[in-house]
């Protein structure tokens, strides 16, 4: 598919979603006469209107959230990557660590935040740590499954040269697992936005999370939905950034494009 066609497809999709949503909102509002129509499913055009009205506000907020997400994502991805490497280096480490990685995902931020605050002291740093904490898991699991899927014969080639662990990872394990890693990153990137929004709510002074919280609390539904849509847009953007990096990092897979 060439660029032009891709562009066309995306355009059609956007239009379709818009129209469908508009229709759904209409049904809810005018046909079912739902008193909460505006809260349940507002008209997309009114959301767009609200986004344009609050444009600068939303942009500063999403800028803050996005930058925090980028930091959280970077740290989280690195940690996830590192954990996967450690777990694939040693079966013992994998057996020990895996259950506890699951446990880590079961501790909600509410329980975790006080501990992190005490450990890190600085609130802003804590927020990034928490965002990273939420992000690392899919990266670790995906990368690990990539590392575990490396063909035996490809490994044997390097064993036969008595390559050091480091070069085995550098030259084989990691490049082989890149497609898996990128699948993990594609999951983690929008998730880091979610995480960043969540930590916005940890008493931050700005960010989309604050917008969401304030608008929910104050019943300003248009701002709420505008924030929801903005966060979704950030998700798409983060996803495409990862896709872009994937295209650069995995040139040998371009064959599949056709």
């Amino acid at each position, binding site marked *: 598919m060439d660029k032009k066609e891709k562009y066309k497809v995306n355009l059609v999709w956007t239009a379709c979603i818009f129209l469908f949503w508009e229709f759904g909102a209409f049904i809810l509002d005018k046909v079912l006469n739902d008193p909460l129509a505006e809260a349940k499913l507002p008209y997309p055009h009114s959301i767009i209107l609200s986004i344009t009205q609050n444009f600068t506000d939303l942009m500063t907020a999403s800028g803050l959230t996005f930058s925090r997400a980028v930091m959280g994502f970077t740290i989280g991805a690195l940690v996830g990557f590192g954990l996967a490497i450690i777990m694939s280096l040693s079966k013992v480490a994998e057996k020990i660590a895996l259950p506890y990685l699951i446990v880590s995902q079961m501790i909600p931020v*509410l329980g975790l935040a006080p501990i992190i605050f*005490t450990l890190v002291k600085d609130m802003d740093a804590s927020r990034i740590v928490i965002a990273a904490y939420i992000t690392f898991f899919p990266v670790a699991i995906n990368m690990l499954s990539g590392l575990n899927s490396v063909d035996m014969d490809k490994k044997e080639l390097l064993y036969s040269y008595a390559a050091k662990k480091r070069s085995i990872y550098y030259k084989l394990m990691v490049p082989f697992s890149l497609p898996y890693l990128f699948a993990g990153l594609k999951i983690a990137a929008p998730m880091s936005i979610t995480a960043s929004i969540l930590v916005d709510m940890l*008493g931050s002074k700005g960010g989309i999370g604050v917008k969401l919280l304030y608008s929910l609390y104050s019943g300003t539904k248009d701002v709420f939905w505008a924030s929801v849509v903005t966060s979704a847009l950030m998700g798409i953007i983060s996803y495409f950034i990862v896709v872009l990096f994937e295209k650069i990092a995995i040139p040998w897979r371009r064959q599949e494009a056709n």
Partner: protein
Amino acid sequence: GCGGSQQGGTPTAAPTAAPTAEPTKSAELKKVRLQLKWLPQSQFMGYYVAKDKGYFEAEGLDVEILPGGSDIIPEQNVYNGAADIGVTWVSSLITYQTQGYELVNVAQIFQKSGLLLTAKKSSGIASPADLKGKKVANWFGGNEYEVLALLEKYTLDKDKDLELVQQDYTMDQLIGDTVHAASAMTYNEFGLVLESGIKEEDLVVIDMNDEDVAMLEDCLFVNADWAAQNKDVLVGFLRASIKGWAEACKDPEAAGELVYNVDKSVSKDHQVYMAKEVAKLVTPDGFDASKIGQIDMAAVKQTADFLKLYNKDLTSTPVVDETTFNPAYWNEATK
């Protein structure tokens, strides 16, 4: 006993040295972090006014107001040092104190409870007794004790006679009729319900103060250790805050606008509405404005007693004395 540590004591040996009234150079300002219980809004207008008018600065303080949020627990943040002074509800504070947190209430900003239960008249609820068999919402997490007390008063079993459910941030459950009665703060949620287009005459309101189950709400509290070591700072902070509150309560309209300009979390109208309502809680009818922040020990005792009765998780009897509610700093600040 818990919270009964010695060093927090010496309440009688309250700070004597009055802080220098003249403004200090900003370089020498002492940094103080105030942790709000909730979002920046007129509920906390006194501090915003004090900050805006330079009252804190005059006390040699550089106060940073930390907004609250869904996962922010002021008691925790003050205790572990992420903040110096906190705003919370007394009922919640006592729960923490009985756990062993050496936190001290140093000023009681709200003298009355702002909590209501509200329902649409169409739900058939006319008085608390009618809650039987209905779906009633509250936020829980330490905000439910007054409602529990109310139910107890009307001999309604919270598990059997009605369905108590959790309320999210919004009032949509009430508006959308998925609950019959919902909790609301006079200064906030109730206003939102009205703003949503429901008329006041179509609503029933159960006021905790009228029902005589009120518990104390917004207060200022600190870590006992910190207070002992930063008496001057604390007293200065209280003095400036009280000044701010006094001014805010005198002209809530201006205060609401000011809060709106600091942080546009809510619309200006709502912020002003909130300011007016909050003023009624800080300086109720007949309350001496110079006594803003005074700890009414009788009211504290009532709050503690209710808690003892309705909070099954309380591990020990609440201690209400000067280790937990210390008026000395307030006394000093208002001298």
